[in-house]
């Protein structure tokens, strides 16, 4: 595999997350499946990285391992130099909107991770994030009565409210309609620029990856390996018809083996 466009992580950033020779083998009914094969990756502090690959390639498994829900069969994952062994509120996993708790109101969901704070402080934070994701007026509403996009914003707000250093997003906009999805991408970038969290974003949508990320990690089908890491050197806000943008996008299309003519 030639790595023509591979770029080392920007040197100015301190390493936040390092994935070191991680492999993962699942065993089901006595049959072994290799899911991840020798993954190496470094992510800098405040960086926005997309893991891109076909459905079922193991990128969600990698994200789960970063969050501490799964432990790798071999190799190790470190955050701030510390080996990841279990989930931690410093890195919050955002599921598709399925993760919001249906038995809590919008306020209750956002305040879920804040029970240790004094009441006044908690309410201030809830109000802040309600405003940030544009859910004013829905504080007392139950998720059942919200639209898909609102639920997704709610889950992001719940994650941000505990002030994590890292967000792990698993195809967060996959279940939304295409217009809402575009709006949500803009919102996420706005939030990222305001709060500068490290973001790992799993997606199978090439356009989405190129629009959002500082770097796109292209993964192969199972067992997943890193095929290529593409540095998206287009400043935000990105002009998605610019020459450079299209060049990078087409490069990834070709890398994955898709001609871009139908």
């Amino acid at each position, binding site marked *: 595999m030639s790595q023509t466009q591979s770029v080392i992580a920007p040197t100015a950033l301190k390493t936040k997350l390092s994935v070191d020779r991680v492999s993962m083998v699942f065993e089901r009914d006595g049959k072994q499946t290799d899911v991840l094969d020798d993954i190496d990756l470094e992510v800098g502090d405040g960086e926005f990285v997309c893991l891109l690959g076909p459905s079922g390639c193991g990128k969600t498994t990698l994200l789960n391992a970063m*969050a501490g*829900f799964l432990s790798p069969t071999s190799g190790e994952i470190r955050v701030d130099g510390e080996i990841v062994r*279990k*989930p*931690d*509120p410093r*890195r*919050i*996993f955002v*599921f598709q909107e*399925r*993760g919001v*708790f*249906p*038995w*809590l109101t919008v306020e209750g969901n956002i305040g*879920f*991770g804040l029970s240790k704070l004094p009441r006044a402080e908690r309410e201030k934070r809830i109000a802040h994030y309600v405003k940030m994701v544009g859910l004013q007026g829905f504080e007392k509403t*139950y*998720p*059942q009565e919200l639209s898909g996009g609102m639920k997704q914003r709610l889950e992001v707000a719940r994650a941000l409210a*505990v002030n994590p250093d890292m967000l792990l997003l698993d195809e967060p906009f996959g279940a939304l309609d295409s217009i809402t999805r575009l709006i949500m991408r803009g919102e996420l970038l706005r939030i990222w620029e305001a709060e500068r969290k490290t973001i790992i974003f799993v997606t199978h949508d090439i356009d989405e990856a190129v629009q959002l990320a500082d770097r796109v990690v292209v993964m192969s089908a199972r067992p997943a390996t890193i095929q290529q890491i593409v540095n998206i050197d287009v400043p935000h806000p990105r002009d998605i018809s610019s020459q450079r943008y299209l060049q990078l996008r087409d490069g990834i299309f070709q890398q994955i083996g898709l001609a871009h003519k139908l």
Partner: protein
Amino acid sequence: MNGFSQPGRVERVFWPILATALLLALWCYSVRWSGTRVFPSPVEVERGLAELLRHHVLWGDIVDSLRRVAYGYGAAVAIGVPLGLTLGWYPAANQVVNPVMQILRPISPIAWIPVAIIFFGVGDDAAVFLIFLGSFFPIVVAAINGVSSVPAVYRHAGRNFGLTPPQLLAKVLFPAALPQILVGLRIALGIAWLVVVAAEMIAVDSGLGYLVIDSRNSGKRYDLVVAAILLIGVIGLVLDVLFRRLEKLRSVRWGFRFES
């Protein structure tokens, strides 16, 4: 006209009244037609009910039955829900306990009557014990199923926010399982009401069940028998309706699919 057209408001009142009236007429007519001396007509039942009310026995019996249900069912809820949550939370423990529960569960609570009488003698305690047994197993099973069907996403989210196991149980698993637990509690309440009547027919000498059997044994007062039976139905219905109110609470409504 099939089930998908919307009948008007007048019809909502008209049809039930018509059906009830027809049924009463049919009952009245067949009593007269068969010339029975024993089985009462609706009018006689109504008179029987009035008689029961006048002699103030009825309230005492109703209170006795409800008290037994409250104690037995209350104890079953207090023990069954935490136990079910725990067993659902630790599948290994559930595997150990499950076979025993599966054998004890289908034993009719009524079949425990002789044993209950040895333990508690003839009286309230025996009846309360039977109600406890009848409602305990459905509650435990509902709580186990409720917890074990909580989507993994919720558990992961809870752990991600740094919750300790007891917090996870209280703040994620319990609320997530609550709709299913409520369904189990409602079914168990129905069973409790069924068992109390049966227990009172055999093991004690007060309550609505006793009223039914006593009215028959002491002088074939079938008007009182039917009056008591209908009353059992009405009270059971009231209990059920009250319980359904709980299911409308906003924090659990998400779990009931056919709620509008």
